[in-house]
């Protein structure tokens, strides 16, 4: 039997030891969190292949294997056969809580529908994405597809769940009923098994609820909830998101191999991995009162999270990733965009073959420096494209009437403007293998700086070993435990980037600056266009930076206006980026390569040729 060893009713007790797992598509990652003194720390980690697929078809096998690795490393007895020992009995036996997140088996795949594509269609998409889903299609009355094409599409897709929206409360019902008729005609089947009805959430015009029930009540597992767009001016995503989570646990998880057992083992509901990451991002932003962008670049997908002025958004670029989807990054970004970050020449055929070979053997790692440079070039483009995607969806509501004032004569704004304001951005958090496991931390920092082109003053960090999902779900049980581990073991602050906005000829003066270091030292210098400068400023240290930009250059306060800010250090330090915004690279190949090489050397991005030669000598011994 699988399940907690104790059958005692759950009583609130102090948490001392927590084991948490994240069941990913390929790997199940387990971490142990222990209370040491007054604070919680992540102490051990273990991982094992995920076992959702044949021949195991039981997710708990991978979970137990990953926990067994922790047992071995920590010397703590956590498992009794297939059971997790709870609660913690003594210093060496049991844990108080076991929690888990999951994205195995392709995560939660949803299809959403709306009436107007960029209004209710987008609202439905935001609701699903925020709940941690991958949106496989957005159908809308005005999406340009013919009715029979829509029906065919619904029929061929096998989503885990459908979210239907459309119409404001009390508005016309025709279009939303029409969509219900299409869905009924398509008779959609769920992805896992054909023996249960497909869960469908209706979150549209409440006046159409009766008709939708008549049309879809028999054919689907229909659930009604509040309208996600009750009036044009307001989104109400919360109730739909909660229903998605409920149905995810009640229907989808029950069908995935071994999840019934896993649900019995956990002390809190299993969360979809991206939902848990989103939760921790929201918690940081709220606690620190900051605007942030978080990114999790994986093998198959890239998730982007943002919190701006308290509004949380998440997008997933389902086919931008570093292994399974690497070839798609090439297809979407184009060869030239990838090559612009590579500091050497390589012929197209060789590069294309290499990228395809990574796609078909996704678990391989770069063995040579040039392979690493190519992968990091691809990562820059994947990050850049995923942010563009995010910006397009993290917007103010579209279709909303705006009151115009006299100032609009000078600054016309359309409705649906993106909420992502890079000038207001305080922190970028990077996660995922290519960022977390970059051999040098400065490489992670430069990948994010090059891809996101932060403006003004922006702090950067990475997730040390990808434990944000675990901490997200932990924060629902014990926020202090989650925060302690997040601050001390999860976040690795890289440092701060200072990037004046504007362009100029390489070598021209861009800005003057003064840095007052914590030890009393003051550095005064000027930054030229094309310069990259890195100053050591350690983790936990702060410095005061005064930047005086040139006449047509801004550092956030307007052209030529000086800015003084307190900046935070990190394992990389304080970076002055004088390469101009938007960042432009020379079209001429030789000029581009020599500029990239100069930048690499300025920040110590890659080992020098002597370092590589010496490493090869060691290797051959």
């Amino acid at each position, binding site marked *: 039997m699988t399940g907690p060893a104790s059958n005692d009713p759950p009583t609130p007790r102090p948490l001392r030891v927590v084991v948490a797992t994240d069941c990913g598509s390929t790997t199940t990652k387990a971490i142990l969190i222990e209370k040491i003194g007054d604070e919680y720390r992540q102490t051990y980690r273990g*991982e094992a292949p995920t076992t959702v697929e044949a*021949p195991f078809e039981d997710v708990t096998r991978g979970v137990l294997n990953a926990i067994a690795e922790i047992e071995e490393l920590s010397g703590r007895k956590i498992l009794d056969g297939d059971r997790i020992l709870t609660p913690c009995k003594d210093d060496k036996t049991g844990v108080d809580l076991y929690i888990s997140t999951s994205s195995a088996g392709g995560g939660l795949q949803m299809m959403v529908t709306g009436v107007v594509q960029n209004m209710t269609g987008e609202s439905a998409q935001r609701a699903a994405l925020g709940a941690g889903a991958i949106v496989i299609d957005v159908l809308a009355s005005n999406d340009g597809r013919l009715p029979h094409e829509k029906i065919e599409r619904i029929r061929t897709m096998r989503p885990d769940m459908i979210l239907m929206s459309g119409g404001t409360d009390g508005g016309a019902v025709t279009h939303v009923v029409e969509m219900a008729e299409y869905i009924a005609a398509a008779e959609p089947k769920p992805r896992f098994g054909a023996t249960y009805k497909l869960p469908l959430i209706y979150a549209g015009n409440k006046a159409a609820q009766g008709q939708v029930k008549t049309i879809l009540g028999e054919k689907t597992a229909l659930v009604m909830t509040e309208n996600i767009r009750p009036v044009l001016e307001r989104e109400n995503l919360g109730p739909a998101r909660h229903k998605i989570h409920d149905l995810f646990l009640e229907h989808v998880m029950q069908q995935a191999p071994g999840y019934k057992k896993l649900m019995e083992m956990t002390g809190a509901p299993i969360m979809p991995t991206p939902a848990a990451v989103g939760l921790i991002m929201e918690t940081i932003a709220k606690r620190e009162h900051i605007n942030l962008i978080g990114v999790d670049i994986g093998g198959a997908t890239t998730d982007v999270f943002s919190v701006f002025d308290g509004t949380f958004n998440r997008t997933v670029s389902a086919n931008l990733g570093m292994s*399974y*989807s690497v070839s798609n990054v090439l297809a979407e970004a184009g060869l030239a965009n990838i090559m612009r970050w590579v500091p050497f020449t390589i012929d197209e*055929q060789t590069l294309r073959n290499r990228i395809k*070979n990574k*796609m*078909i053997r996704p678990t391989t790692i770069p063995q040579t420096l040039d392979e690493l440079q190519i992968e990091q070039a691809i990562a820059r483009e994947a990050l850049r494209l995923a942010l563009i995607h995010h910006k397009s969806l993290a917007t103010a509501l579209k279709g909303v009437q705006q009151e115009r004032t006299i100032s609009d004569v000078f600054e016309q704004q359309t409705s649906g403007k993106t909420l992502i304001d890079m000038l207001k951005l305080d922190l970028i958090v990077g996660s995922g293998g290519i960022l977390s496991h970059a051999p040098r931390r400065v490489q992670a920092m430069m990948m994010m700086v090059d891809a996101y082109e932060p403006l003004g003053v922006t702090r950067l960090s990475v997730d040390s070993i990808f434990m944000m999902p675990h901490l997200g779900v932990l924060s629902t049980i014990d926020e202090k435990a989650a925060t302690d581990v997040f601050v001390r073991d999860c976040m690795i602050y890289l440092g701060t980037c200072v990037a004046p906005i504007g362009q100029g000829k390489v070598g021209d003066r861009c800005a003057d600056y003064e840095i007052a270091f914590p030890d009393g030292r003051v550095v005064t210098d000027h930054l030229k266009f094309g310069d990259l400068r890195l100053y050591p400023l350690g983790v936990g240290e702060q410095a005061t930076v005064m930047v005086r930009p040139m006449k047509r250059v801004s550092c956030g306060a307007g052209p030529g206006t000086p800015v003084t800010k307190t900046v935070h250090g990190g394992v990389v330090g304080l970076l002055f980026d004088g390469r101009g915004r938007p960042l432009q690279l020379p079209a001429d190949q030789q000029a581009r390569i020599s500029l990239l090489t100069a930048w690499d050397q300025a920040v110590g991005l890659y080992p020098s040729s002597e370092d590589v030669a010496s490493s090869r000598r060691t290797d051959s011994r």
Partner: protein
Amino acid sequence: MAHSYTPGLTVTDQTVVRRVRQLPLQGTVLVKEGDLVQATQSVARAELPGKVYPLNLANQLGVAPGEIKEYLVKREGETVHKDEVLAENKPFFKWLKTEIRSPITGTVESISLVTGQVLLREPPRVLNLLAYVDGLVVEVRPQQGVTIECACSLVQGIFGIGGEAHGEIVVAVEGPDRPLMPDRLTAEMKDKVVIGGSFLPAETMAKAKEIGVAGLVVGGIHDQDLRALLGYDLGVAITGSEQVGFTLILTEGFGAIPMATKTFALLSARAGAMASISGATQIRAGVIRPEVIIPLKEKRLPATRSADRAREGIQLGDLVRIIRDPLFGQIGRVSALPSELRKIPTESEVRVLEVQLDDGSTVVVPRANIEVIEGA
């Protein structure tokens, strides 16, 4: 306990595979447990519901949705032929008459008085599910499908395109390091599974299509040629439904890479035999690899020979293929498995292993960058 596991590709002369044949929706199973079946035989049948065509009659007739029933000539559930009148108005003046004709032959599925839509459905299409491999029916799932067991020689490829095919094996090159040039293909190779060596150029692909070969099995191709063949840049390795005229299986990867000697020798030894091949590849969760299945005369082999069992990690002496530059495509045997992490030229500290290549030299490779040639 967790262990470092590198999934490999199986190349073996004798094994037992089970292939699940599943209908996309409920139907009828045509065979019973214990039956011997042929690859091209139907084992199950289902009726795929026909396509649905919505027609907004309210709009076309210019009436309110609630009124359309008055104009309908056909009722729900009735059969309708293409161009037959579905609905019509009865105006006072004849020349104002509007007739709505059916765009398809099928049935009237539903009529909505809320939206004014009529849904028409085409007749169902019969789907015959083939056995795909010669073998024994070992399991029947009523209304869903069967599992067929086949004692065979098996070659798993790394990547393929195109669906299932069946044909006689013909070897078209002298050795595994020889490219398959167009002049090696002849008209007699129609409907056959042609084995090449290191590389398949675009010109040979064109000729294969022209001749009508069933399948091509080669070491590698250039990505640019694949893009030209498909007409688009393949972003994610989920394949099997392409229709390019033949099924293509790569045994090594992208580029000109000699086919592993063992693979070439096995396929050559089985020349003249009938093979079932599939190009379907899925690299993400639930890995599916392209395969060449060549049935043996014996219908059963000991269970330990099964290729479907899970491996227990890499061991000394294992035959492995290096799957990343700078030694991509080289094959050798594992000669040491040091447990400590080693710093590689990228400065990453990783677990490595030593591989002794055919020429006797030894190289150090990250464990993530090798693939075990299973069945060795």
